[in-house]
């Protein structure tokens, strides 16, 4: 039956390729960029509440940030609306000088007061995107004193607690909550003191290279060139993002030339498109990690030996990364993403049934046990889960897979109501070890009542005071060498402690685009800017 299915899939694949080769090409307009993308997770455009990657890709083209991160070297900061910035010797104050020529789409000048108001708004609304700012100690109460405009062009940010200012700058260059809003325009749409939240759900008030024309949820988003942009105006007159979820439909449209770019294609479709001479495939590493996690609250997994058996000996890291993860992720086992100075070489955990059986026997479970794996019902999560199910079975662990939506799976994790989970997360937008360590490992209060649901460390019920201290120490250490040492030590402690979460792969985002698209540079922090993109026709 499987071979029949496989034959059918190959036949379909071959015929699609044949179609691709024989069909007459339609062409998208020369001055418009047409992108096919799944916008399933795009629920709002409000920078204070919008989560997920979709909105970052839009926000960085409609709004400006104070600073930008170089797409080729994300640790390098580039000027944005701020033409220069200085960090006080004690590291507790960052001052920005804003450029005077920038104008919002409304024609209003961009001022430091707009910038201060934009940040205050995020904290005062206390919605999803307040999270990074709260982690640096900002609150709705202290924000007015800590972030302020000293004149029309000078913005001052005082850090409420000792924090490496680098990571704050990285957040300012990557988080959607750091975009600068046109205060006057937003306040014109204030409704019952909501600071324009209802209006900003479907509108934008920025100064970026593109103006948001229209967003119809799960249908289309249209942006057009902002001709008065303070940099050179974008090459493309319009950018149209079409909501499309079917990989084969995307593939057909790309090959026919009805789309310029697409994301979210399946591996067989990407493989097939790679053979098309008119198509390019770009993959960009993100800081996010795919992981397998267990609940240390569960008596089975409270035992370090069982965690080691399940998370380090019974995960087929090589097999998963070779067969499941191409175009989704690359081999990585550390809680700190690849490409950072502090990242240690891979520890080389290997699938080893004999060692796993021994560990389980030592823990008093020589015959394994029954358990469940919660997983989001989409690729590559389900593929990782089925692979894990089969390798666990080799050591006598009978795991049932419980597929669900992201809401159901991560909802259960937030409630600490799971045994094993295959997931993705861990911050990583900021190119700083703290970003991932904080999201994946840090857990300052392991009590149920603490409800630190934003920390995956808390969700897995694992807490190690020494590891927490190292993570906290790294964040406050300004000497780069010492800071690196602390993060190296934290990774070694992670090795030794066997926490309840184990990275399997580092996320890769793959974009397929037609060869005549020039200057597209995918950004590791998702802030992919389209202002330089053009077509060679």
């Amino acid at each position, binding site marked *: 039956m499987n071979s029949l299915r496989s034959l059918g899939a190959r036949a379909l694949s071959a015929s699609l390729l044949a179609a691709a080769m024989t069909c007459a090409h339609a062409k998208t307009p020369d001055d418009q960029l047409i992108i096919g993308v799944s916008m399933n997770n795009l629920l709002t455009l409000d920078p204070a509440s919008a*989560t997920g990657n979709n909105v970052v890709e839009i926000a960085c083209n409609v709004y400006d940030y104070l600073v930008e991160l170089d797409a080729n070297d994300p640790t390098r900061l580039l000027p944005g609306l701020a033409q220069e910035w200085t960090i006080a010797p004690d590291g507790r104050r960052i001052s920005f000088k804003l450029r005077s020529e920038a104008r919002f789409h409304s024609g209003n000048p961009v001022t430091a007061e707009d910038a201060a108001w934009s940040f205050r708004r995020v904290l005062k609304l206390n*919605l999803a995107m307040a*999270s990074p700012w709260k982690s640096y100690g900002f609150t709705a109460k202290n924000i007015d004193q800590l972030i302020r405009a000293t004149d029309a062009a000078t913005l001052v940010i005082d850090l409420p607690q000792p924090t490496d200012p680098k990571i704050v700058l990285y957040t300012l260059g990557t988080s959607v909550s750091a975009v600068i809003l046109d205060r006057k325009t937003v306040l014109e749409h204030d409704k019952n003191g909501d600071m324009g939240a209802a209006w900003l759900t479907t509108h934008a008030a920025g100064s970026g290279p593109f103006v948001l024309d229209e967003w119809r*949820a799960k249908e289309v988003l249209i942006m057009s060139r902002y001709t008065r942009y303070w940099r050179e105006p974008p090459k493309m007159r319009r950018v149209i993002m079409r909501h499309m979820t*079917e990989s084969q*439909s995307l593939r057909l449209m790309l090959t026919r030339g*009805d789309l310029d770019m697409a994301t979210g294609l399946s591996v067989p479709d990407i493989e097939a498109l790679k053979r098309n001479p008119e198509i390019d495939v770009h993959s960009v590493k993100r800081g996010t990690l795919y992981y397998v996690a267990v609940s240390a609250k569960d008596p089975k997994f409270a035992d370090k030996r069982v965690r080691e058996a399940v998370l380090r000996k019974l995960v087929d890291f090589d097999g998963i990364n070779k067969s499941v993860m191409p175009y989704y992720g690359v081999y990585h086992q550390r809680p700190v993403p690849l490409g950072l100075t502090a990242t240690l070489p891979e520890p080389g955990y290997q699938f080893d049934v004999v060692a796993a059986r021994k560990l389980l026997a030592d823990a008093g479970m020589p015959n394994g046990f029954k358990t469940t794996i919660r997983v989001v019902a989409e690729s590559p999560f389900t593929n990782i889960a089925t692979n894990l199910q089969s390798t666990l079975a080799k050591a006598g662990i009978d795991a049932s897979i419980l597929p669900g939506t*992201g*809401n159901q799976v991560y909802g259960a994790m937030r409630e600490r109501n799971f045994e094993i989970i295959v997931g993705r997360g861990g911050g990583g937008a900021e190119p700083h070890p703290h970003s991932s360590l904080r999201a994946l490992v840090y857990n300052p209060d392991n009590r149920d009542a603490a409800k630190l649901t934003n920390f995956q460390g808390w969700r897995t019920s694992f807490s190690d005071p020494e590891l927490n201290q190292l993570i906290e120490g790294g964040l406050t250490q300004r000497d780069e060498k010492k800071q690196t040492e602390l993060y190296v030590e934290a990774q070694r402690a992670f090795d030794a402690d066997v926490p309840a979460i184990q990275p399997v792969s580092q996320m890769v985002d793959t974009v397929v685009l037609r060869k005549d698209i020039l200057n597209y540079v995918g950004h590791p922090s998702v802030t992919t800017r389209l202002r330089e993109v053009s077509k060679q026709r």
Partner: protein
Amino acid sequence: MSALPQSPPSAPRRPSPGSRHLRLAGQRLFSVLLTLLGLLLLTFLIGRVMPLDPVLSIVGPDADRSTYQQVYHQLGLDRPIVVQFGYYLRDLLQGDFGNALLTGHPVTEDLARVLPATIELATLAIIVGTLLGVPLGVYAATRRGRLGDHAVRLISLMGHSTPIFWLGMMGLLVFYAWLGWAGGLGRVDFAYDGLVKPVTGLLLFDSALVGEWAVFGSALKHVMLPACILGLHSMAYISRMTRSFMLSQLSQEYILTARVKGLPERTVIWRHAFRNILVQLLTIVALAYGGLLEGAVLIETVFGWPGFGSYLTSSLLLGDMNAVMGSVLVVGTVFVALNLLSDALYQVFDPRTRQ
């Protein structure tokens, strides 16, 4: 105290036809409202026990507790369920369906946008399905047990059992990728997107109204393939039902009498037998149409069609109860309206029901 003049005892009065109709209409209206209320209550309760958390959909998986609690409160989820339902009904009676989490727009606005897209698709599909299904069903009935009957059965079986998703993909491959006859995904070519301001939301109609014939042509090219595939699916059902209705009529004595009288076979079939199945057929077509309105989700997914089926499914997966309740109300109303319409048509076509 003077005695009032006694009125002579009168015979019990029979209600006039007008008041009888009024009473019947009142009863029907009451039963419709009760049905819709029951449907809403059931959907509301199911929505509350579903393992989906609308708060999490809004705040994302990494939000902290205080943000979560704040949104939980803003959505009114901290109130008792009965109170929540009461507030919902109160707003509903004022025409306020609430805002959709999915789009940030009022649900009524969303429905006004997605429903016409599906109505356009489903209407064309039902026309295709009926125009093909009815003659095929009649033909099969008149060739019972013969090759023609088997051929129609085979076509119906294939139309009904082939996954519509697969048909959609194959249709795109052949008619869009190979031949270039169909218009690909979406309702219109990207270049025409947003050129015609929606009046009815039916793009074919709106573009014709303002004389945008290029947009009309593009929209027609885009809608034909998904409509034909959906129509093929309906055709299978309609043809099987037509065959079955026709067979029951063709075995009646009046058909025998008509044949004995020497009427041409065509007249016997179309004027006598077919005319008598019209009422049942209308019900079937109406229900098939209703099914298309809410069940076109797979074809909408394959063809990137921003319609009602996709909207309902996405809302459901998100736990977006305002959107789900609004959509369910629309589906319920459509089915009730179609039932009422089919009852009314019974009265038009079948004189016995007028008694």
